[in-house]
């Protein structure tokens, strides 16, 4: 139930074409008063902010960029849904941002919004760029023709921002007269029927609803049949009429531009044109792209390791501080062994995620990211992917969660699904600690032709992940069927200097999404795991406890820690999770794992990096569990009690790495795939397939190397 009070904060929707400078205006207006939420019904992040002056408060909602109110991708559907009030009440006001250099195209969307009958205003952005290009906009002419306030702005230089604020606080928005007559494109009885059924206030909403009925959107279900039947009865060809309507709109827009616009010379962005001669060049363009990718790698490996080490030390310190400060007991144990390492396990990835998304935001802001789509499309296509799949896949190198979410911009549903399904195979940062410890154990730290063998091993793991991603996509290309045609039609915006503040904001918001998304799951699972690892059937645990006390009483003080550690590992063996590990041992024996590794496999199903912590606990390493060297040394000494062989020999180590390269082992990704595909079918298929492939690959690896 929704409670509507008189004091409800009024909402203003911000809409415009992609690359029109929408986000810089949004940032200028809201500053840091932003939040990322969810739209009800659809699970796409909604970024909104607050504008305040005295007691007047307005909520500004930033809608994804779109060329029209007829959505093409998951992203653009949001704009449609919000403006038509499909899930929530319609916004009170709309601000439409127009591109001063391309008024024709941006007015297509602008006049569609006019026809919705919501009080609105136009912002004509990038006015300085238009002036440089000899474009003069006669504001008065536009106002006379459109009947809606119009403000010239330059979002990057804060020009016109005060005027926008004033317009908002005085609520100078106006309802436009309909720009086109819908009855020219749709028979009156149809308009009446649809308006009557939905209670629409304008004819255009009826037209829009009709067009939307031809989309494959889950929200269409019930009404779709009724609308399609209505169209059939009336002999209404939706696609044809939509084209007619768009052409009619352009004709009227051009009439308007004849009066309202004066152009001294044809538009020519010389700098962009010259840069593209290089950046899109068949040889130079790819060389530069490769260099950019290398720089990103350098950042997420070398630069990120400094803050990551700090975070590591900090959380280890916090854990021991809790132990020392609070009285010992179950709660302290839970806090120090469950919750703090759980949160630490999430926070540790922030530097890599922030850096990667900082780079991506930087590239997007300069206009380069659209060029990546151009450069990579041909390479991606044979694998059933799209040029736009590149960004999700690169994101996957830090974390699959934002990667899967970034796939929303892909409009072909098959290409989008393939991208979502294979992105988790890109080697994410959670695999890194697993690889590092296993490589340290099983690959000699020697030079081979001048290159460190361990570095080669790590690089191979990343290559393995990337190759698996592409091969997986290729396979899915032949399995999945679709009638939808894939196409690429994208705007390459002009190059601009990046806005550092916007880059910083993206880094912040992406990290926040990650912490909230992954954090929830990882935290919950680590608590559950802690409980399973700390408790066991009481008959076994009680006996152990008694035995330990007896031994402790008899032993001198300097031996007590050692005894405690030994019993800790015995308790783990007899805990619920230890019993589970033993239960799966027969299944994982062929992969070269014992029951202890089995436990780590189970616990790290929550998140891969949990493997390291679990292994550390199982092999009862006292003191600083985060210290890799001590873990490594201890693991190196570990031998099979029956055969006397090393547990972590090369075959087992390689087999484990291969397993982690392929297996899903990440609850958060599972949850995000569910959110993005809106069904459990895909995440379940994905997890099963990945685990089976991981098992087989690990099996063969072990058999080859042992």
């Amino acid at each position: 139930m929704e409670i509507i009070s008189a004091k409800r904060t009024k909402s203003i929707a911000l809409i415009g074409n992609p690359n029109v400078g929408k986000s810089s205006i949004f940032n200028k207006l809201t500053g840091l008063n932003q939040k990322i939420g969810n739209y009800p019904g659809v699970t796409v992040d909604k970024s909104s902010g607050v504008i305040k002056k005295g007691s007047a408060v307005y909520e500004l909602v930033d809608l994804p960029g779109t060329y029209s109110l007829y959505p093409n991708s998951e992203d653009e559907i949001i704009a449609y849904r919000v403006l038509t009030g499909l899930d929530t009440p319609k916004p009170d006001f709309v601000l439409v941002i127009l591109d001063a250099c391309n008024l024709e195209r941006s007015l297509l969307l602008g006049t569609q919004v006019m026809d919705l009958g919501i009080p609105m205003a136009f912002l004509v952005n990038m006015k300085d760029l238009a002036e440089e290009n000899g474009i003069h906009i006669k504001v008065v002419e536009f106002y006379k023709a459109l009947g809606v306030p119009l403000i010239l702005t330059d979002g990057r230089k804060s020009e016109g921002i005060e005027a926008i604020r004033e317009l908002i606080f005085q609520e100078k928005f106006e309802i436009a007269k309909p720009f086109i007559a819908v009855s020219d494109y749709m028979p009156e009885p149809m308009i009446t029927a649809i308006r009557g059924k939905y209670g629409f206030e304008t004819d255009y909403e009826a037209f829009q609803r009709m067009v939307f009925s031809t989309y494959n959107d889950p929200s269409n279900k019930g009404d779709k049949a009724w609308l399609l039947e209505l169209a059939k009865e009336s002999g209404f060809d939706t696609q044809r009429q939509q084209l007619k309507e768009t052409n009619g709109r352009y004709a009227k827009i051009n009439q308007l531009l004849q009066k309202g616009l004066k152009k001294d010379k044809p538009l020519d962005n010389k700098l962009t044109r010259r840069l593209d001669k290089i950046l899109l060049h068949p040889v130079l363009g790819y060389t530069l792209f490769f260099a950019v990718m290398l720089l990103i790698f350098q950042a997420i490996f070398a630069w990120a390791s400094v803050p990551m080490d700090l975070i590591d030390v900090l959380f280890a310190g916090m854990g021991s501080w809790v132990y020392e400060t609070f009285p010992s007991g179950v709660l302290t144990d839970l806090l120090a062994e469950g919750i703090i390492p759980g949160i630490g396990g999430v926070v540790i990835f922030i530097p890599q995620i922030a850096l990667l998304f900082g780079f991506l935001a930087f590239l997007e802001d300069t206009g380069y990211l659209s060029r990546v789509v151009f450069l990579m499309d041909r390479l991606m296509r044979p694998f059933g992917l799209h040029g736009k799949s590149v960004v999700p896949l690169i994101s996957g190198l830090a974390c699959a969660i934002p990667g899967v979410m970034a796939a929303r911009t892909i409009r072909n549903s098959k290409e989008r699904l393939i991208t979502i399904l294979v992105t988790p195979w890109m080697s994410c940062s959670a695999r890194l600690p697993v690889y590092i410890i296993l490589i340290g154990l099983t690959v000699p730290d020697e030079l081979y032709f001048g290159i460190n063998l361990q570095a080669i091993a790590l690089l191979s793991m990343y290559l393995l992940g990337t190759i698996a991603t592409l091969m997986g996509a290729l396979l899915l290309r032949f399995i999945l069927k679709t009638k939808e045609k894939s196409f690429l039609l994208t705007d390459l915006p002009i190059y601009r200097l990046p806005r550092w503040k916007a880059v910083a904001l993206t880094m912040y918001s992406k990290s926040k999404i990650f912490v909230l998304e992954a954090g929830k799951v990882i935290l919950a699972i680590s608590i559950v795991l802690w409980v399973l690892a700390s408790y066991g059937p009481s008959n076994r645990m009680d006996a152990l406890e008694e035995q330990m006390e007896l031994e402790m009483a008899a032993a001198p003080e300097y031996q007590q820690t050692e005894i405690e550690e030994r019993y800790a590992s015995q308790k783990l063996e007899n805990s619920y999770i230890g019993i589970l590990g033993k239960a799966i041992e027969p299944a994982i024996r062929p992969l070269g794992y014992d029951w202890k590794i089995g436990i780590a496999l189970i616990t790290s199903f929550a998140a891969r990096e949990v493997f390291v912590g679990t292994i550390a606990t199982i092999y009862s390493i006292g003191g600083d569990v985060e210290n890799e060297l001590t873990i490594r040394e201890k693991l190196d000494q570990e031998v099979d009690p029956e055969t006397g062989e090393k547990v972590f020999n090369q075959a087992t180590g390689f087999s484990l790495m291969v397993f982690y390269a392929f297996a899903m082992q990440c609850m958060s990704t599972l949850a995000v795939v569910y959110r993005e595909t809106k069904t459990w079918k895909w995440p379940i298929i994905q997890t099963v397939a990945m685990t089976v492939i991981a098992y087989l690959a690990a099996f063969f690896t072990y058999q080859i190397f042992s």
Partner: protein
Amino acid sequence: MIRSAALLQHGEQSIIDRIEDSPYAINFLEIGLLPGKHISVVQKAPFGGPIAFLVDGHMIALRRTEAELIKVQPMNP
């Protein structure tokens, strides 16, 4: 002489004559590919990849199959 935009060479200046019918005709319209507009090639991605066009001063990238739907005629000198 009317031919498809996919056949345009670097430096050739043309005018869009019409857009062939296709399921994504609406997307061409929406991004601003309209008859009467001035069109030229900026770069072609290798191995039959996308083509970047300059359309009335704005850069738009399309795959070759889409570019084939755009029919152009040479610009009168």
